[in-house]
């Protein structure tokens, strides 16, 4: 499935460069970005190893929380990826571009609702 979702990185305001080595900051209106592509996002999600902690369907595990289909607001999502406050390995732009990240956001947003377990 290819699904385009306008993730609006400009509004989310991601600064795509390091403030100093290993550090990234988010500022308003830093960059205009294209809408994310869910299918490309799925490929990126696997390629850069998001699935290792969050599962291939972004369903979450003990190693990383569920990411979709109702992800964090984009700005918070970006911050969590670039400058995680917790145990998550940081993803700098050299290994995950802003465009790739937008695709990943589109992918996790496109995840289906959960199956309802029988009682």
């Amino acid at each position: 499935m290819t699904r385009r979702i306008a993730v609006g990185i400009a509004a989310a305001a991601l600064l795509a460069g390091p403030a100093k080595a290993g550090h990234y900051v988010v500022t308003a209106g830093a960059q205009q970005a294209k809408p994310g592509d869910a299918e490309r996002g799925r490929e990126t999600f696997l390629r850069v190893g998001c699935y290792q902690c969050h599962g291939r369907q972004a369903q979450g595990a003990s190693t990383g929380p569920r990411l979709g289909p109702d992800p964090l607001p984009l700005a918070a999502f970006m911050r969590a990826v670039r400058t995680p406050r917790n145990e998550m390995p940081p993803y700098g732009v050299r290994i995950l571009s802003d465009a790739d990240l937008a695709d990943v956001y589109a992918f996790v947003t496109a995840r289906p609702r959960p199956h309802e377990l029988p009682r």
Partner: protein
Amino acid sequence: MADGRVDRRTFLKHTAGAAAGGATLGGAASASAQTAPQQPDPEQLTTDRCGADCMVDVLKAIGFDYICANPGSSFRALHESLVNYGGNSRPELITCCHEESSVAMAHGFAKIEGKPIAVLAHGTVGLQHAAMAVYNASCDRVPVYIIVGNTLDATERRPGVEWTHSVQDAASLVRDFSKWDDTPISLEHFAESAVRAYALATTPPMGPVLIVADSELQERPVEAAYKLRIPKLTSSAAPQGDLAAVQEVAKLLVAATNPVIVADRAARTPAALASLVALAEALQAAVIDQGGRMNFPSRHPLNQSGQARATLADADLVVGLELTDFWGTVNTYRDQLHRTARSTLKSGAKTVSISGRDLGIKANYQDFQRFPELDLTIAGDAEATLPSLVEAVKRLVTADRRRVFDERGKQLGDASRNAYERARRDAGYGWDASPVTTARLSIELWEAIRNEDWSLASYLNPVSGWPMRLWTFEKHYQFIGGSGGSGIGYTAPASVGAALANKRHGRLTVTIQPDGDLMYAPGVLWTAAHHRIPLLMVMHNNRAYHQELMHLQRMANRHNRGVERAHIGTTITDPNIDYAKMAQGLGVYAEGPIEKPADLGPALKRAIAVVKRGEPALLDVVTEPR
């Protein structure tokens, strides 16, 4: 003695009873024999009784049900005595394909049955194979009883391999992580030390012990009339916490606004599980079960394990029961380029530990974790201390406090129910995806066994703890914790050992078997098939050493290199291992690889039918990483 050489064993036949004491007498006699006229009796080539028979008498007197062994010449006499003189019954010899499997089987057995079984191994190569499993048992505070063969007397060693399989101090290899050992030099010494070893192994804090069975002592002839005296085995009462300190803990618990009880390796028996329930209910206090043992019913309203961090953040008193890592319980640690830590407790929260861990602490191996700054520590076994703590609490609870407790209990019950509903909802994400999610695997397995008398023998971290979130664990044998030392290769043999213990009770043993773990010593599947040990193994086959893959990812991201090559050395692909074929080749019923979630339920029904016939079965399920 055709060449005039003295055969010490032949000479000692005349003094067999006393000769069990051996070395000094044998040495003096040899010197005398060498100067005596060479008119020997016809060479004695056989004997009806040997030292190993006496050792078997000792093992029977102690009461071992099984003895796990991969055969080795350093204990050939003991092996022969077990199966012939001992009738291969109590103990029955369990044929293992690796000493690590032998020890891990004993590890799993002990946690189900509450008593050790024995292991036989070479003192050198066998014990080296076994060492990692001994370490696991040590970290997990589990009694494992190991007998190693060795030939101490250099003049009695056969040329060649018997030298490479002999050692001056066999037990030194595992002394850092075993509780006690001895190298007896007489049968009387063996009997005394064997009984002492059992008593020490089973006294909390429990742990592995090791007895060296010298090959000369095993093989030496013993006169028919010789009667070895075997000391009486007396089990020690477990060390209880000081009563005054226990009463102080009771006061703190009753006065606290939000007391939290955290249990790790606290409950070895059903009685301890019941005591912890009684304590929690008397206080209507939150309980966090860290999973070292089956400490607390998973669906009990006071069980807050699913929201441990939030529960601890709100606590004004934390009482830890046999915690492996108290510091890690009340601090968060951030594994980034610059490592940081912070307390998760609010200011003024008090901390109390009841644990026997420090009673058995050693220096070299660092399983004791970071030093926690606590307000009150009680050096005593938590299980043994719980009854007095329960009584002390009950005496202090007033009607006013009871009303407060009841209100607290209602809130905790709501939180517990909400956590369960969240878990059910979360388990539905990725439901139909392939590879199979660990949540789907856990639910399919639960639906297949929930109406059986089941026992889960595997640890839950690799499958994100789903069973503990979704299943109803109530009985002490339904969960036995993990390896202790996190040495991979534990789950498969420990599950077979647990299944061996459950067999006599007619329980259905199930295990969620990680793929990397199984590949350490898959021969244990043959052991399960050979001995008709009923066990359902459902594989969590994520085709990786996934914990290490995540570590590689962490390093690669930290160094701005990306994860594209993190699979090198961490994945188990190309070729994918066909575990079903492997298991079938070892005599185990197997199906797989199962990649479609909908195929899992029917496969489970077929496999359970096999297990109910008394045989092992394996389902290879290709799964999500965690």
